[in-house]
């Protein structure tokens, strides 16, 4: 059933594609986060802009990825930009909404106390609002990362140069369903997604000891 000889001969390729997968996903989430962060701060500061920003992100999310690749190839060619633009676009809707929700979730009395103590607006944002939004921000990153890891596989449709582990899935399919190769792509990408999920759960605990204290308190 499993072609062990093929596997043994392609270990290097599997390792390379795994790293490519991680790289493409991480780049997409990182750029997506940077853009979302700015958009969310703007939306939180100027409430009127929140609906249009959120709606725009929602519309971007609905564009089918294959159609997007096709459209982008004519502009950015077979470059990494073509692969990353859709990945980044799909993270926006999750990240913008979570960051704004995180900022919105800061209790009014905490903001009032911060103002009353003499925080400037900027100090309040960086030292009070954002730290308190961290749980929702990390939750957004977790969701965005896991879904981006899934999406990276379809960048294989652009060219052999992309796709991460998705390359094996597509290539195996083209070889009239060479299952060993398809598994060599599918299994590690599932593991990557699970691993990323677990990693974020731990990061979450690590960076919000105060929320853990609350959870402990609630359970006791």
């Amino acid at each position, binding site marked *: 059933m499993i072609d062990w000889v093929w596997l043994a001969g392609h270990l290097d390729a599997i390792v390379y594609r795994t790293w490519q997968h991680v790289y493409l996903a991480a780049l997409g989430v990182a750029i997506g986060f940077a853009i979302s962060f700015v958009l969310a701060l703007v939306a939180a500061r100027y409430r009127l802009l929140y609906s249009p920003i959120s709606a725009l992100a929602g519309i971007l999310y609905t564009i089918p990825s294959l159609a997007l690749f096709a459209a982008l190839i004519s502009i950015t060619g077979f470059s990494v930009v073509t692969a990353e633009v859709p990945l980044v676009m799909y993270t926006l809707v999750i990240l913008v909404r979570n960051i704004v929700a995180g900022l919105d979730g800061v209790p009014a009395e905490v903001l*009032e*106390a911060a103002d*009353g103590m003499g*925080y400037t607006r900027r100090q309040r944002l960086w030292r*009070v609002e954002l730290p308190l939004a961290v749980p929702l921000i990390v939750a957004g990153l977790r969701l965005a990362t896991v879904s981006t890891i899934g999406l990276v596989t379809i960048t294989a449709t652009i060219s052999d140069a992309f796709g991460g582990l998705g390359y094996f899935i597509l290539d195996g399919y083209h070889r009239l369903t060479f299952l060993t190769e398809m598994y060599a792509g599918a299994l590690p990408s599932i593991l990557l997604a699970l691993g990323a999920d677990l990693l974020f759960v731990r990061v979450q605990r690590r960076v919000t000891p105060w*929320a853990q204290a609350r959870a402990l308190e609630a359970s006791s």
Partner: protein
Amino acid sequence: MPEQAAHRAAIVEYQHVSKSYATAKLPRSAPGAVNDLSLTVPAGKICVLVGPSGCGKTTSLKMVNRLIEPTSGRILIDGADVAGRDATELRREIGYVIQQVGLFPHQTVGANVAVVPRLLGWPAARQRERAEELLALVGLDPALYRDRFPAQLSGGERQRVGVARALAADPPLMLMDEPFGAVDPIVRERLQNEFLRLQAELAKTILFVTHDIDEAIKMGDLVAVMQAGGHLEQFAPPAEILAAPASEFVADFVGADRGLKRLSLTRVGEMALQPVVTARAGDPAGEARARTFADPFPYLLLLDPSDRPLGWVNQRHIPGTGTLARSLATPMSPLLDRRTTLKDALSMMLDADVQTGIVVDRAGRLRGVLTVEAIAAALRPSADPEVIAAGTSGAGS
């Protein structure tokens, strides 16, 4: 140096201050939240703004640290118009306590208390030192509480941390908006008493908002009674508010039990205490017995060698010979100190089902006793002048 601020208290003046929230949507027909408020809070006093919900207390308070800007009028702190100050800088010089406390959930208790020193750029070691000093001041063991998060505190502990945080940079003025409103009555009572004890040492100028007239009478050196629409109805020491309400509204708001409320204005230290027959444990019993029978009160108060009360001994239980054993003493009346209010004293006596409270000094040594009759006498109309005079002696006007 921040230390220079120590023991400085500010004078706060409202000069014809009005605030209307009228906007395009809420046009002029909307009544003002605060209406031509003028009053002066002397340095080092607690001024309580009291009135029904929505009468403009919070608005009045927040105009002092410019969380709200007045529509007209001026507020002066030590003669300087707050409108001319940088709002952020101004707020760092004014302590601020709110009902919901608003501790920062992501910071430890120690970091919460050191918020303003941190904003002011104090060295880290000094911040830490100050936070510990303040936690101890509000009755929280720094070793135990410093590293906890707010979620791990009870409501009363949170309020204490809120007060400590407001005191951190030793501000000459504190604004407190229903600071003890979110805790149960027993904890509230304790926090009030502790705060009064603190204030006796700190002598800050305090603007204190409450909707509870009892709290106003208890906490205030001066009480400003406000009515819906932000009108000031009366501004006077609490005894005067109780004895001579300026309007129907004030009389109603203060309530029909004004007489009883006066009890909370007089402290045990202002009353003439009665002597009582005493003896130390180990004294000759026969002599003590004779003295007790010569006194109309049928009990002897047994003291330890430092004059601290041990308990009552019924005169019939005193042996004719030998010495007085500690074991003769039966459970005690409540112990009162100079700062206990007559209301609390009476309530403690009723709870303990006794007629007499034992008054002790700071070291726990006997000063005398106070009886229920003496308290009743203080309530009688003929006793008014003294009581009122005594009650107001602490309040400057």
